[in-house]
């Protein structure tokens, strides 16, 4: 059972000038695990995710992927990024391409798949999120929830080892949230390794193997959903969760 870790983050720091956004972050992610990061806004959750994907350059620390240090100067960052997919809060579908092209372009350019093959994979993944009928639509013609489902399909088409979700439902109308979460849950059940920043506590509780609670740039609490939600240790997390319990209907 001692499976090697897929992703190991150790002593990660990120500074913008004098402002330290991430202070000494360390965690471990194993294959097929779902890791959820929760915490108050401004706590560094998104920055952590963006550092993992190298959209931000960490100030110091280590990120190991398959035992290789991602931050080494000789490391091929583009190949790494192709294996670590990302779903954004603002969807970021390519606005000059239609739904199908959005799902095909990465496969063709980065994975060098043939157009035929890319198309098959794209349609299969669009079907899984219920967006195949919209394959000829341009992103701006779709609702937020539809765009986010396409964005998920686009990321899955790349056969990623890990898929990162940066608050995927925060920009959505409440009635759209369910569809997106359902798509994500299905992915989690299929065995995909996922790292999710979210404010959907019920969802986090039901899909996560591991939850990290972050506030003010540090990991305040870390454990299984049960440990965090039932046996809350710190006053910060208690306060944070209280806010959600009040809101729950």
């Amino acid at each position, binding site marked *: 059972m001692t499976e090697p870790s897929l992703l190991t983050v150790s002593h990660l720091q990120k500074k913008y000038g004098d402002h330290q956004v991430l202070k000494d972050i360390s965690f471990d992610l194993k294959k097929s695990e779902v890791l959820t990061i929760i915490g108050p806004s401004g706590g560094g959750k998104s920055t952590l995710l963006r550092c993992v994907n190298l*959209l931000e350059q960490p100030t110091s620390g280590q990120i190991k992927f398959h035992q290789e240090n991602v931050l080494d100067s000789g490391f091929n960052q583009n190949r790494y990024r192709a294996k670590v997919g990302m779903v*954004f809060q603002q969807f970021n579908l*390519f606005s000059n391409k239609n739904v199908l092209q959005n799902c095909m372009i990465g496969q063709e350019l980065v994975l060098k798949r043939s157009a035929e093959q890319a198309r098959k994979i794209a349609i299969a993944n669009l079907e899984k999120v219920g967006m*195949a009928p919209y394959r000829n639509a341009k992103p701006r013609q779709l609702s937020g929830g539809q765009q986010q489902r396409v964005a998920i399909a686009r990321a899955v088409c*790349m056969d990623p080892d890990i898929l990162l979700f940066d608050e995927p439902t925060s920009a959505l109308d409440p009635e759209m949230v369910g569809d997106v979460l*359902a798509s994500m849950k299905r992915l989690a059940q299929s065995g995909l390794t996922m790292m999710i920043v979210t404010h*959907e506590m019920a969802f986090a509780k039901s899909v996560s193997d591991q939850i990290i609670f972050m506030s003010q740039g540090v990991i305040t609490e870390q454990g299984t959903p049960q440990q965090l939600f039932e046996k809350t240790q710190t006053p910060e997390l208690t306060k944070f969760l209280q806010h959600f319990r009040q809101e729950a209907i």
Partner: protein
Amino acid sequence: MKSRKLWKWAFLLAIGFSLFFGGKSQSVQAASKGELKIGMEANYPPYNWTQSTKAHGAVPIDGSKQFANGYDVQIAKIIGKKLHRKVVVEKTEWDGLLPALTSGKIDLIIAGMSPTAQRKKAINFSAPYRKSTFVVIVNKNSKYANAKTVNDFKGAKITAQQGTLHYGLIKQLKGAHREPAMRDFPSMRESLSAGTIDGYVAEDLEYISYKRVNPNIKEVVLKGQNGFHYPASDGETSIGVKKGNDQLLAQVNQILSGISNAKRNQLMKAAIVQQPQTETKTQNWFVTIMKTYGSMILSGVGMTLLLALVGTIVGFVIGLLVGIVRTIPTPTARFKRWGLKFVKWLLSVYVEIFRGTPMMVQAAVIYYGIAQLWHLNLNRTVAALIIVSINTGAYLAEVIRGGIISTPTGQFEAASALGMTHSQKMWHIILPQAIRNCLPSITNEFIVNIKDTSVLSIISVSELFFVGTTIASQTFEFFQTYFIISLIYLILTFSITRIFNWIEKRLEGPQNYNLMANQVQTVAPKLSKEVSHD
């Protein structure tokens, strides 16, 4: 990978520069041995003018389907015959004559030019081939019509041709307002009849010529103590020869001494009779102009379109490349970083220089400068194309850079997250969006190019405006000619706007999308409710 691209850039740049400046294959001196290239305005009757046929022994104008004739042309033909060289007229703006001669683009200036002391510093002059007096030309019913002395012009608005000694003489008219100098005689004639000036200083010949087409004018001759004072040579007209070309100067002087005064007067009289007249107005002016000059206008439209189209397209390519290079993110390796910094600096210098100077000045500097410094005789159409292209490139470089940086960062990030390289991101994601967003500005630049290529008349490219000027100077129908020309400009710019709007629409792609009925599901799937909020 990036460094290799950088080198490719540097290499291309180097080739460009060497093509531009290095080639000395075409020596000006060698090229002109067979032909005798004569510089003149072809717009100063009766000395020289432009006509559409070769009637009365006219000589073809280089680079056009027009012919030049006049007293200067006839003198040139005598010289050419004696030298056994074919006379070719290089139609050149007055201010461009001296640079054209010193840069070797022409062999002789025969343009009714006086050998003033100032000009003698730059070029040599032959013995005079014509002597004349200076007069003030006024309207017959003007209050200055009866002036006798230089003291009788108080308050009069007087002008003369730019760069001529006539303009200096105005200072001697006591109390007269010296109006800004004008480019050519047709414009002064027009201003005089329109009443915007009270008179202009010119040679007696101009009076004789103008009187034939407009009987309502009068010449004021100012002689004696209270007349114009000027060195004797200023009333003379001589042939300009490049300094150092003493052999040609001697030959010209020898030939001139063989032309008797009687022969000169005969030639001048013939020129005055043959010079262009206003046509008898039996037909509609529009029909007349279009009938006589239709093909000339059409070729002007063609040249304008060619310049604007090629200029905009090449300028767009230049702008695209410069814009792309200027937005390359800073590489981590030190060598690459400095290399890129240097290339970016070079490009910003290019943009600053070509955006910061008028295209007219660039045209003059490049066209005459290259000839003078490197003895490279550029064809003027080619020169014009190069100038418009690099000028447009400088503007569009900034437009495209703006388009690239204004593309939402999310687009860059999403492409990065898929593992695309910088160039893949640019070509497939960013540039298509940036160019689409830049299209209105590119349309703008195209339209500006259609209109602004008119400044290239300084290097005598026969585009629409140049053609218009030529026609106006032949017909003296200024309003009518320029009205037609402006109408054509409007039609051109209007059609181009429509075409670009259409392209913009096309780039947006179809607005409709049909839901694709697929085999597996024809409706959106029902999603389980288990994960919704509890």
